[in-house]
Every structure is written in C-alpha cells, then in structure tokens.
C-alpha cells in the first residue's frame, strides 16, 4: 500500500496504476510505504495550502486579490508553526477542520471553500468506512 488517506487508498484500489517502465529504464524497485504516492502528496498539499490561504485572506482587511497575494507567505509560515510546536498530521488536519467549521458558519469569502473542505473530510470518512468493510 502506497497511500495514506482513505480516499486515496480507495481510489488506488478502484483504479490501479498501470504505469509502464519509463523508456531507457532496465529495472524498477518500488518501496512499500504509505506516503509513497507523489500524486496523493501533491494533491493533499495543494488543497491544504490553498484552503489555508483562502482562510487567511478572508481574515485580512483588504480586497480579495491583494489579500490572497499577502496570504501566500503568511500561509507558508502558518502551516509550519504547529509542526515545529510538536503537532503532527492529526493536529494539522484537526486545525483545518476546526477552521472550516468556523468559516462554514459565517458568510463571506471563505464560506464555499469551507463547505468544500468539510465535504472532503466527510468523503474521506466514508471512504475509511468502505475500506474497513472491504478490507482495503
């Protein structure tokens, strides 16, 4: 298994990767690690950072384009604070979930983004149940 999140595990089972060996390559040795999928990693990373950027932009007292631009470096700092404070994967996701609940309850720029994020969390939870039932 080369995926971490339930949704990615389920997707990998439903649509197995049939990637062929790249041209000019004689042998490939694959590592078995739940964080090995580059597609999953980059997708989750972009989704997480984009969501945090929108939340930070929503808190800034400027118009959206300027606020979004200012939010980019602030996001880079904001996501690292909980990591170096000792928080791991669970803490980062929990913080995003709580922020999404808060923004979903308030009308504004981040309202739809927050609901989308909560849907992603919900879909992943459903995928987790399906994976358990199917032994994935």
């Amino acid at each position, binding site marked *: 298994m080369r995926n971490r999140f339930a949704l990615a595990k389920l997707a990998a089972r439903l649509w197995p990767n049939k990637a062929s060996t790249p041209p000019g390559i004689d042998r490939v040795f694959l590592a078995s*690690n739940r964080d090995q999928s580059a597609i999953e*990693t980059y997708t989750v990373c972009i989704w997480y950072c984009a969501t945090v950027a929108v939340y930070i932009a929503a808190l800034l007292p400027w118009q959206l384009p300027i606020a979004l631009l200012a939010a980019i470096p602030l996001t880079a700092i904001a996501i690292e604070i909980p990591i170096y404070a000792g928080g*791991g994967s669970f803490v980062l996701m929990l913080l995003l979930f709580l922020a999404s609940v808060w923004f979903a309850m308030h009308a504004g720029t981040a309202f739809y983004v927050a609901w989308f994020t909560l849907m992603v969390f919900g879909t992943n939870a459903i995928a987790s149940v399906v994976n358990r039932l199917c032994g994935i």
Partner: protein
Amino acid sequence: MSRFHVRGVFWRQFLRYAAVRVPPWIEPAVIATWSAIFLLWGPGRRGVMRNLKAIKPGSTAIANFFRCYRVFWNYAWTLGDNVRFKAIGTVPDWEFSGYQYFETMQTAGSAILLTAHMGSYDLGAHLFAERSGQRIVMVRAPEVDPQTAAYEEKHRAQQVQIEFNVKSADLAIDLLHAIRDGGIVAVQGDRVTPGIADLPATLFGVPTRLPAGPFALAMASHAPIHPIFLVRVGRRRYRVVAFPPIVVPVSRDRDAAFAAALQTWTGHLEDVIRRWWFQWFMFHPL
C-alpha cells in the same frame, strides 16, 4: 564557525528535527518555503548561477535565478530524503538505467565508483549495501565546521565506511587495500578539494581541475572505474544511471592514459549534468 552559518550544525539538527515531524503530505510546501529562504545564501546562489551560465550558454541571469531555485528545491528534497532514511528508515523507489553495468560492479567488486555531487550518497550506499556483499568505502570532503562533522559522523549510515580526503598519501594506500580486498571505493569526481592531486579538464567549455585520485587508483589497482550517477527523478524516486566501465591501462605514458580516461569521464559527466542540471549540487563555480 557560527552554529547558524549555512554550514553550521544548527541547520543539520533542525533538518533532522523537521524530517521526522513534518507530515509527508505537507512536505512540498515546507520544502518550497525553505528553498526560497536558502536563496539568501549568496555564495551558493552565485556559484550555482555561474555554473548554469556555463551549462546553458546564452541563458539570462533572471532565468538562471529561477533555475537556481529549482536546484535548491531538489537539494532540499535530497537532504530531506537522506535524513528521513537515516532517522526512520524511509527508502525511495529506485529505477536503473544501464543496470548491467551496475550489476557487474556489484558482483565483481574491486572497483571504483566515480560519481558527482548529485542525488544522495547515503541513500545510494544503502542501495549498494542491500544488493551487494562488497564493502563500500566512500571518500568525501570533510565538513568545514567541526561540530557539523561530529554530528554527521554520529548520524551517518552504518552500511558504509567513510574516508575523508585530507591526507592523500595515507588514504591512497588504504583505498588500494580496500580495492584489493574486493571492496568498492566511491569517489566524487566533479570537484577537487584543496591539497588533493588534480588534472586539467574542460567542463562545458570552462577550464577546470578534476581529481586525479580515481584514475591513479584505477591504474595502480587495475580496477575499472564505474561512472554511476544518482539522480532524483521525482518525489521519493531516484534513478541510478550507470555507464560502461572506464579502464585505465597500465602505461609508461601515465599522462596520456589519464587524459583518455578523464575525457571519457567528463563526456559522461557533461551528458548527465546537461540533462539533469537541476540535480547538480555544485555550489562552487567551475
């Protein structure tokens, strides 16, 4: 040297702290941020940009600045992969180009592995140690900072023996013995450190000096030189690029024999760097 200098021990300690705590799915964002911060390291940035100017003639400074970021980004990934491997044993995917040459070296032993400042020495050594019973001796330049040197020594991979190229005469004899006992000696042949014997060479049209040691060792030990490069081709995915071995014949005309072998080596080096310029972690100008 200050522990907060770019080569100071603080950054190694911080990297290790981060490598085991940063969730892998947020790693790209963290690495992107730190790569941007390390662009402030003027000498390293200027060294890379000057080399890029030679690799890509006619390239503009602004384009090379962004290319330099890509070099730093790849270097950060490589360091992160290396530390993660040493701290928690995470191994990447490996793919091979020229597998038969790699296999020949692994099974026969008594060889010189000539490589460049690309990929990760420790990850590569782990791969070699896993697939071969031969002893691996790596030769590398010592760390400038004593605290950093002590820290790296404490956390180095266990599968390999590391020798520092500081006392060339003694080291040459040790390496000769290692090869005669069937071992594989790994040397980086794209940069010469002060006090080490060198040979005149040309890389990308720029006159430079490259280490003479691997070629002298090959002639003295009758061992082949295997040009092998480790290239990071994606997230947690590395490619081993192996070329046919270079034989340095025993000859009265040492200079001619060395020059021929060096020419073959620089040809492979240029091919690989031209294709994977963003993987050449050479922070000193040619």
